C-alpha cells in the first residue's frame, strides 16, 4: 500500500508538471462553486480558494468569477462550467493525438488471431439500441461546458477549447446545432494554423442554415483559408 501511495503521489506530481499552476480565486460574484477531483458534490468557493487542476468550476445565473495563476487571469462568466485541467497549452502533437482520442479509446475490433475469452453469461445486458428509455442528457450542463470552452478560446487556449467543445457536442448530441460552438472550433483551428482542419469545419458549418452575419464570416474565412493554402 505504501508503494501504491508513493506511486499516486509521484503520479500527481508528474501530472501537475504538465499543466498550469494551481489557480487562486480572485473575485466572486453570485453563486460560484467548485467540484473537487472525481467527487460528485459542488461546493461554494470564496476569494482566496485554491483550484487544483483536477477541479471543475461552475458559475450560476448572474454569477461570475475571476481566477488567476502565474499572472494569467481568467474571467468566468455566468452559467459556465470550466475544468481547471483545460486551462493549459498543448503542443500541436499532443493536441492532434487528443483529437484522435475518440478512436484511440474505442474498443478495437477483435483481431483475427485473437483468442476468444469464453464467457458463460449469467445476466445479459439490455440491448440499448432498441431502448425506449428517455434521453436524460442535461443540455443545460452541455451549454455551460460550451461556455467554458469559449472562455478557454477567449484566453487563447485554442487546443483545449476545441477538445472541450468537441467532447461536449459528442456527449450532448442535442447541442449539435449550437452554431457558436462549432464556429469556435473552426476559428480555433484557424488560429492554430491547422488550415485543413479549419477548412473542414468551416465547410461543414457553411452547409447549415446560418444567420447572415455568421454565414458571411464563415464564407470569408473559407475563402481566405483556401487562398492561403
Amino acid at each position, binding site marked *: 500500500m505504501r508503494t501504491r501511495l508513493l506511486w499516486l503521489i509521484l503520479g500527481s506530481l508528474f501530472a501537475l508538471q504538465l499543466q498550469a499552476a494551481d489557480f487562486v480565486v480572485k473575485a466572486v460574484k453570485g453563486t460560484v462553486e467548485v467540484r473537487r477531483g472525481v467527487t460528485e458534490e459542488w461546493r461554494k468557493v470564496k476569494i482566496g480558494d485554491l483550484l487544483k487542476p483536477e477541479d471543475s468550476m461552475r458559475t450560476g445565473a448572474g454569477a461570475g468569477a475571476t481566477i488567476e495563476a502565474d499572472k494569467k487571469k481568467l474571467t468566468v462568466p455566468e452559467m459556465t462550467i470550466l475544468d481547471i485541467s483545460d486551462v493549459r497549452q498543448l503542443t500541436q502533437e499532443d493536441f492532434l493525438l487528443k483529437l484522435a482520442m475518440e478512436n484511440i479509446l474505442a474498443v478495437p475490433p477483435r483481431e483475427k488471431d485473437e483468442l476468444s475469452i469464453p464467457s458463460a*453469461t449469467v445476466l445479459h445486458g*439490455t440491448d440499448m439500441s432498441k431502448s425506449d428509455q428517455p434521453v*436524460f*442528457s442535461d443540455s443545460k450542463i452541455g451549454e455551460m461546458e460550451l461556455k467554458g470552452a469559449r472562455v478557454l478560446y477567449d484566453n487563447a487556449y485554442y487546443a483545449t477549447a476545441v477538445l472541450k467543445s468537441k467532447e461536449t457536442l459528442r*456527449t450532448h448530441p442535442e447541442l449539435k446545432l449550437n452554431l457558436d460552438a462549432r464556429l469556435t472550433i473552426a476559428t480555433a483551428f484557424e488560429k492554430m494554423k491547422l488550415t485543413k482542419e479549419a477548412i473542414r469545419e468551416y465547410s461543414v458549418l457553411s452547409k447549415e442554415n446560418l444567420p447572415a452575419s455568421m454565414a458571411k464570416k464563415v464564407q470569408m474565412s473559407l475563402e481566405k483559408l483556401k487562398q492561403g493554402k
Partner: protein
Amino acid sequence: MIIATFSVFGQHLTSTRGSALGAFTALSDDIASIDWNPAGLGSIRDWDVTTSLYSAFRRDVSSGGVSLYAAGSAKRFLDYHVVAGSYAPGLNLEFTVSTPFAFDSTGPKIDKEEHIIYREQYALGYGYQMTPTVGLGLSARYREQMITSRQVVFDQATGARIKTDDNTASAWNLDIGLLWKPNSEWSLGAVAKNLFRLTESELPEGVLPYGLRNVKTLRVGAAYHPSRTATFVLDFDTKAMGGFGSEWTVSDQWALRQGVWFGGSSTRFIAGLSAGLGFSYGPAKINLSYVHFLDQSSRTHPTLEKFLDRGVQDLGYNVFTPDQLSLSATIALGRTRDTWAKIEYVQILSEVYPSSYQVHAFRPLGKARVKNVSTKPIEARVAFFVDQYMDNPTETRSYYIEPNGEVDVPFTAIFNEAIRFVPSMVLRAADVFVKSSPAEEYDDKSQTRLIIRGRNDWDGDALSLRYFITPEDPDILRFTRNALSEKKDSLAGVARQLEKFRSARTLFNEFATRLTYVNDPKVSKDRVQFPSETLALRGGDCDDMTVCFSSLLASIGVSTAFIDVVPLQRPDEGHIYLMFDTEVSAKQANIISENPKRYVVRKNERGEETVWIPVETTAITEGFLNAWEQGAKEYFDEVEVGLGLVRGWVRLVDVLPGR
C-alpha cells in the same frame, strides 16, 4: 620385330556412366569421382556403396569373362565433407615383352622376357563442398609397378642359365579437382592429375623405360543441362585427349547415353565411340556401357616401340585400352536423396507461457532461416515439434526460395493440454525441420531449445494477462452465481440500463468481503494467479486481483479492459487496474455520475458510445465506491491530464467476453 602383347585385360574407364559419355569431369558425382574429379565427391549425400564388373574385348584374344573391377564406399560427415575409398582389383595392366634369343641360327631359341605389371588398386578421396555451388576435392591413388626381367646369362661353370630380376616401385599420386555449378544449367570442372607424387620406391635406371609415366596434366570439363531430360558433356586435357557426349533421360528411371572419344595418340581424331544405359530405382543405380575404339592396331597388336614411345600414363584410358563392356551397381544408403534446403539457424522469438499457450497457434513462436542449397528454385516448408507438449508437428506454408537464396520462415506451435500443467520453468528440446518440394522427407533438421514457463508465469505484458482470465472456471461461475443470488432482491428493482453496473458493483463488494490485497512485489513479480487460485487463496496482488475481478465480470458478460500504466521514466513503477463497460449509453451517462471525470466514454464495436467505469482493484477493502473513485482519479491524472494514452505509456487492453 619385337612384339609386346597384353597378357591381362585389367583396365577400365573408372565410371560406367562416364565411360558411356566419354566425358565426366564436370558431371562426376559418385565414388568414381576419385579418379575423374575428386571434387565430385561433394555430391555424395550420405553413404554410397558401389561395385562394378567389367569385361574387356580383344579381337586377338579370347574373352577373359566378367570380373570384379572395383568396390568402394563414401561417406559424408559434418555436412560438407566426404571421404571415400576404393579397392580396384581389376585396375591392373600387364604386359609381356618377349625377345627371342638363340645361341646360333640352328640352335634352340630362348625367350628373353620383361613382365610388366601396373596396379592402381587402392585409392582414397576427400571432397569438400565449400559452397552450394563450389566443391573441391583431393584424391590419392596408390600406384604399383612390378617389372620382372628374365634374361640368359652365361658363365664358365654352368654355361647358359636364365636369371630373373624383380624390380618394384610404388607411389601415391595426388590429384586435385574443382567443381563449380554456377546455375542449374551449367557445371564446370577441372582436375589436375598427378599434381603431386609421394614416392615410396623407384624403379632402377635400367628398367625405367618400362615404368609408368607420371605426367602432370590438367583436364577441364563442362556439362550443360538445357532441359531436365538432356545433358551434354565435354572433357579436354593438356595431352589433347578428351571426349564429348550426351545423356537423355527418357523416364524417371531410364537414361540413354552416347559418347565420342578423341585424341589419345590415336591416328584418327575420333578415337572411339561409346554408348550406355542407366537405370535407377530409389537409392539404387545400375549402369551399363560399351566403349569401342576405332583404331584397333595398337590395342590388338601393341609394339614395343610404341609402348616405349607412348608409355602408360592413365591406367584407365590409354592407347592400349581395348573395347570393353562395363556394368556397375551403386547404392546410396543413409539419407538417400539430395538436400535442397538447409536450416541456417533457428531463433525462438518468445518463451512459452502456459497461460497463453494457445496464442502460439496463431502468432509465430520462432523463425528459421532456410537456405536453398540446390541449383534450382524450391518451395520450402518448416515444421516444428516439441515432444511431450505437442501431439503433432506444426507446418508452415510453402516459401519460394531462389537458388542460394535465404528466407526467414516464421513458425507456430500447437501445444497440447499437458503444457498447462507445467509447474515451474523447464527447458525442452524442440525440433525444427525443413522440407522442400519435391522432397518426400525433410531436407534438414535442427534442434533448438525452448523455454516453457510455469503455468503461473507471466511475461509482464498486459496483453498476455488476458489469457489468465477464465470466466468459465466452475469456481468463478459459483462465485458470481452465489453473489448475485444473495442480492437478487436488491438487483430486481434496478433499472434495466443499470443492470450491468449494479451487478458489477455487487460482485466487487462481495469480492471485497472475501479477498485481501497482498502487496508483495518480490514474490509476485512475473507471476500471476489464475482466478480460481486467487479465490482459493483469498487474495493476491494487483495483477491477481485485476485478473480475478475481470474474470468475474466476464462470466456475467461484462466487457473489461486493463489499464496498463508503465511510466516512461520509471517502468518499474508500472501498475495495472481495470475498467468495465456498464453498457449505459453515453447520452445517459449522468445516471451513472454527474461528474464526467468518474467515467470514460468509449465507442464499442457497433459504434455505440457507452460508459466505462475505472476501478482500482487494490482498493478492495474500501468498497466499490472508493475503488471506483480511486480508479477514476488515476485515469484522469494519467490519461486526461498526463496524456498517457496518447503518448503511449498508458495502454488499454480489452477483454471482451466471447461472442
